[in-house]
């Protein structure tokens, strides 16, 4: 597979059921239209909601990144976009049901794997310029107490010391996972795949 291929459903590993019959392209168009007129089939689908939120964050950031790419490189490299979109598609899939264990009789509580991936991706809000590609759970998340290791691919902005950025990202993820799951997380492994050059905000005319 050529990494410069235009992202499509096949490349993204996206099946119709991942987005309740919708495509990433349709969701992108819907977002572009300001989510108007409201489409209940999209708004009431958790997979579509997860994908829409991630696409919105990507849309806010990508013009700056692409502009910086155009200045820094002879040919824009869209492979990072493809990796991010691939991760978004994976998030949209509800995946396994992860049990939430609480000391309450007859309580069968859980959270979908897709929802957990979505909230991990939402740490992008706390770290401007950071984009999360794919996240992977190593370990059986369906078994309470089972050790689980999380692996993330990320793209980071140029100029930020990576060790500090990765520590902050790991902290944000840890906070969210404690609030939303009872997973026994043993480690969060973060691999920086891209360093993106962002425009200097002091040079921008606002």
């Amino acid at each position, binding site marked *: 597979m050529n990494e410069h291929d235009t992202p499509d459903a096949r490349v993204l590993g996206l099946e119709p059921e991942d987005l309740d019959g919708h495509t990433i392209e349709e969701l992108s168009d819907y977002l572009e239209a300001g989510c108007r007129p409201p489409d209940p089939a999209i708004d*009431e689908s958790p997979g579509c909601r997860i994908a829409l939120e991630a696409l919105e964050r990507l849309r806010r950031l990508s013009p700056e990144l692409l502009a910086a790419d155009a200045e820094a490189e002879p040919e824009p490299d869209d492979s990072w976009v493809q990796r991010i979109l691939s991760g978004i598609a994976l998030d949209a899939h509800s995946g396994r049901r992860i049990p939430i264990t609480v000391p309450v009789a007859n309580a069968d*509580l859980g959270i979908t794997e897709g929802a957990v991936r979505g909230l991990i991706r*939402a740490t992008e809000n706390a770290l401007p310029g950071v984009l999360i590609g794919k996240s992977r759970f190593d370990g059986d998340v369906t078994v309470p107490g089972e050790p689980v290791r999380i692996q993330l691919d990320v793209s980071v902005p140029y100029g930020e010391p990576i060790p500090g950025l990765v520590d902050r990202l790991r902290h944000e993820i840890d906070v969210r996972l404690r609030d939303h799951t009872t997973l026994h997380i043993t480690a969060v492994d973060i691999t920086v795949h891209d360093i993106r050059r962002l425009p200097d905000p002091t040079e921008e005319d606002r």
Partner: protein
Amino acid sequence: MTDIEGQALAADLETAVREVAGVTGLFRVGGVLSNVADAGAEILGLEGARPPLVRVDTAEDGWSVEIAIGIDGIAGSVETSRRVHETIHALCAARGIPFTKIQVTVAHVDESMRKD
């Protein structure tokens, strides 16, 4: 309990769960096929036939309740799903409805309200 009573219970549960702090919405329980069927019913103008978002089923020794919720990221899935469970349990108990299972699944977390 008849199917009609079951549907009425599901509708009441839906209303009660929407009131739980931290819940932002409900999602349909079930796979793509049932969702497609619902969409088809809407296209055909059969919106009245659209089933409640809460699934209430009969079991051998009682009823089972399944629900998929969206939550506010600040509220936390652990606490919010526990409160939803308590709400369903209390409503069923108040009506003397025996149940065998109450399954609550968080399907979406809205992180947009979190201030970092």
